[in-house]
């Protein structure tokens, strides 16, 4: 896909110099981990993924995710694992588990290698979080039998984007930034029957995330509608005008159909915490 | 890139042959074709015309939709003048100023198609509009008139 976006994407992050300067310290999370969520780190058979396995395990990524999802009152157990998949994704199927693939993390890291060193950790963390939230969204939709209008893949993206915006500005910027880097890196050209796929083209997903971001936090993400020297905006005018209502729509859907099984007090605790972005996955 | 002869040379050899698509030049043709274009920032443009029905009588009719950013051929009319007003869905107006002495005032139906003879007082659901004059050059078989304007 076209790369003109990258410069602008980087620009809005650089406008917030605190993003890469923050060295987020480890915090003991007071929230109890969600007992309905089971986690597993599966040893890769391919030795080249062993370092990824080690890093994730050391960083306790899944444990942290368990704590993050504490407010969710699931009606059934949810399994989450990191594993070698034989592909970058292992789509969520009914009855789970949610699988994050070493191949995907490897892909994210390779993409991030092209990113300026000061922004690299944000790129990795952001993309990783996007993938995790997307997959967990699928699981939540299925376990709780949430009514979903629209394409399921887009719904998972929109819910993930919504979640990204419920915390502080820094987390929103880093995750959206990482997301844009990830999609921007795709050089796949979609033609003909490619469009029959249940997933949406990377460039389309890119705009979906940007729109929810701008719609939910127009001040934080005003860089997306700031014209460059050619008068072009990263998020085109015709779409930007709709983003506030797109955000409100997902928020409303969340409040109507997901909030009923979220513990509100636990949610406040989770939102008040400073979540460790995996600053050092590498 | 090859150097092109200056435009003046072509103009000289062209004459008026390609002013429009009619190849046979009829200087005495009593009618001309009118095309109108909307190159303004306004959208949803409609035009009403005051035109000669015959030597002494004038007719007023509307509306003719002009595509956003494009042109349409409206029809053939008697020479050598025609009058227009235009309005757009988003608030654009093209009418003659009060000080324009060449203007013609006519009644129009603002919301639906209409056709009437010139003159007379306006009915209850009509409004009065000042039509702007267009003079059609004698040697032009088709006039393309472009509406412009910024928002």
């Amino acid at each position, binding site marked *: 896909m076209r790369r003109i976006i990258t410069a602008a994407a980087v620009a809005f992050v650089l406008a917030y110099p605190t993003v890469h300067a923050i060295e987020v310290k480890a915090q003991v999370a007071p929230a109890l981990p969600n007992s309905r969520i089971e986690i597993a780190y599966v040893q890769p058979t391919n030795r080249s993924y062993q370092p990824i396995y080690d890093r994730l395990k050391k960083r306790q990524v899944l444990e942290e995710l368990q704590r993050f999802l504490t407010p969710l009152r699931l009606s059934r157990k949810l399994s989450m694992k990191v594993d070698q998949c034989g592909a970058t994704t292992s789509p969520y199927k009914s009855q789970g588990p949610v699988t994050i693939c070493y191949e995907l993390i490897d892909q994210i890291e390779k993409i991030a290698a092209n990113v300026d060193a000061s922004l690299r950790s944000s790129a990795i963390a952001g993309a990783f979080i996007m993938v995790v939230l997307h997959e967990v969204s699928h699981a939540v939709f299925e376990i709780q039998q949430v*009514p*979903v*209008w*629209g*394409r399921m893949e887009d*719904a998972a993206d*929109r819910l993930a984007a919504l979640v990204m915006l419920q915390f502080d500005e820094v987390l929103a910027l880093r995750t959206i930034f990482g997301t844009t880097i990830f999609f921007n890196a795709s050089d796949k050209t979609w033609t003909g*029957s490619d*469009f*029959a*796929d*249940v997933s949406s*083209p990377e*460039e*389309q997903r*890119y*705009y979906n995330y940007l729109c929810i971001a701008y719609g939910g936090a127009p001040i934080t993400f005003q860089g997306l509608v700031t014209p460059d020297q050619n008068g072009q905006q990263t998020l085109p005018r015709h*779409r930007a005008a*709709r983003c506030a*209502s*797109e955000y409100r*729509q*997902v928020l409303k*859907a969340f409040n109507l*159909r997901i909030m009923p099984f979220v513990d509100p007090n636990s949610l406040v605790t989770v939102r008040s915490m400073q979540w460790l972005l995996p600053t050092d996955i590498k | 890139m*090859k150097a*092109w002869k200056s*435009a003046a040379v*072509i*103009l000289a*050899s*062209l004459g008026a*042959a*390609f002013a*429009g698509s009619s190849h046979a030049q009829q200087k005495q043709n009593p009618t001309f074709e009118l095309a109108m*274009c909307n*190159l303004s920032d306004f*959208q*949803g443009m*409609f035009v009403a015309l005051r035109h000669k029905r015959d030597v002494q009588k004038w007719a007023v*009719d509307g*509306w003719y*939709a002009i*595509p*956003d*950013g*494009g*042109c*349409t*051929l409206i029809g053939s009319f008697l020479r050598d003048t025609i009058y227009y007003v235009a309005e*757009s*869905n988003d*608030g654009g107006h093209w009418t003659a100023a009060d000080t324009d002495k060449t203007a013609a005032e006519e009644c129009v139906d*603002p*919301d*639906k*198609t209409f056709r009437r003879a010139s003159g007379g007082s306006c009915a209850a659901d009509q409004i009065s509009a000042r039509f702007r004059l267009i003079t059609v050059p004698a040697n032009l078989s*088709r006039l*393309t008139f*472009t509406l412009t304007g910024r928002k």
Partner: protein
Amino acid sequence: MVAPDRHKIIRAYAARSFMKQIRSALRLRKDVMKLHLRFAAFALACAAVSDQPTFAQTSSELNNSLITFSYSPPKSAKYLPMMDRLKSFQILEQLSQFLSPLRLPHRLALEVRECGFVNAQFVTWPGADPAWRIELCYEFIQAIERVGPKQGEQSEFTYEDVVVGSVVGVLLHEGGHAVFNMLNVPVFGREEDAADEMSTFIALQFSKDVALTIVRGYSYLAKKWFAFGAPLYSDEHGTGLQRYYNTLCVAYGADPVLFKDFVDKGDLPKHRAANCASEYEQIKLAFKETVLPFVDQNLMKKVQAKEWLKLTPTQVTALRQQQQKQQQTFSFAACNLSSISGVYLALTVRDVSDPQKWQVHGWFPLPDEGCNYIGTFYGDKLFYFAFSGNNVWSAPDTDRTASKQCVDTVHAFDEAAGDKCKPGQVAVNFRRWVIGPAETGFTLKLHD
């Protein structure tokens, strides 16, 4: 005729556009009718349209006093016959009956009107009465009539099936937006896809004939019209092909026997087909939980029991007449919007008088900062070349869609395309322009 950015058509076909206040919209519609389906009135209306079957008794019960409709007289005379045609098809009467089982929180207006753009939309206009409106533009109907299979064209569908199916599919899509908005429905995915889903889902709740007509018509529209041109990924709509495959998939998921052909003919790839049953179940669950509670079950049963979309012979004839009228021609104008003056244009086109032959015509002068309406030509494409002094608008050598033709550098000329260059002529690359399937004309704009 209409020659804006192609994608605007697709964008404009957006149900949920909240339009700015416009002068004409504020005027209360004096011709808004309340649909009082008293038996006598309805029977009279039926009698006026010669061979309408009188199912008045069933229909008089499909009454929702919150739904009103109007056929607004067009501003352009050219749409008067279309208004009469739509009235004779009773398109709005039928739509209002069809929507009657919905327990709406407030009034909803259905309107056909001349909009000044090509669209069908659900809008909320605070100044209008009622504010919630499903609007169908005459311009949109015209576009659909044009997009349908041409007379003599090889097609697996009849013209009337495509036109009826796509118009109904579009109206159900707008109805979807109306439902999402009015009933506060939670929508996690993209709303445009959700509206497509609603349309196809509803179609599948009726007879096989109705389902086939709507699914085929709507998917034809997506593939033929919405998929034209380069995809616009930033748009809130999916690409035309995405919408095409979505429609086929939902239908196949609901009834893999009825829609077996989609997979057998390769229209719907197997890797997607495998997922379609669960996609249909997802939509069914969404409808059941978020919309069905607002549906009057008795009225719904009556609506489902009625026969829909059965065209009388007169109606089929009327539609076929419209098909005949669709010319394989387009109108063309060109504007010089550049800072360069004295621009001349040459064209490689097929003249209406001799449609099989490509001709190269030059030169058409373009007024500075103005336009020249050039004429009407045959087919769906032309090739152009323009210049002024050393400024040239042409195609690069790498453009494989370009057409290399000879032009006379000094004089006016009129040659058969493909001829060798005569003395005084030079070969240049004409750039191709293909007109969209719904457009009747286009305007070329030359910029710096």
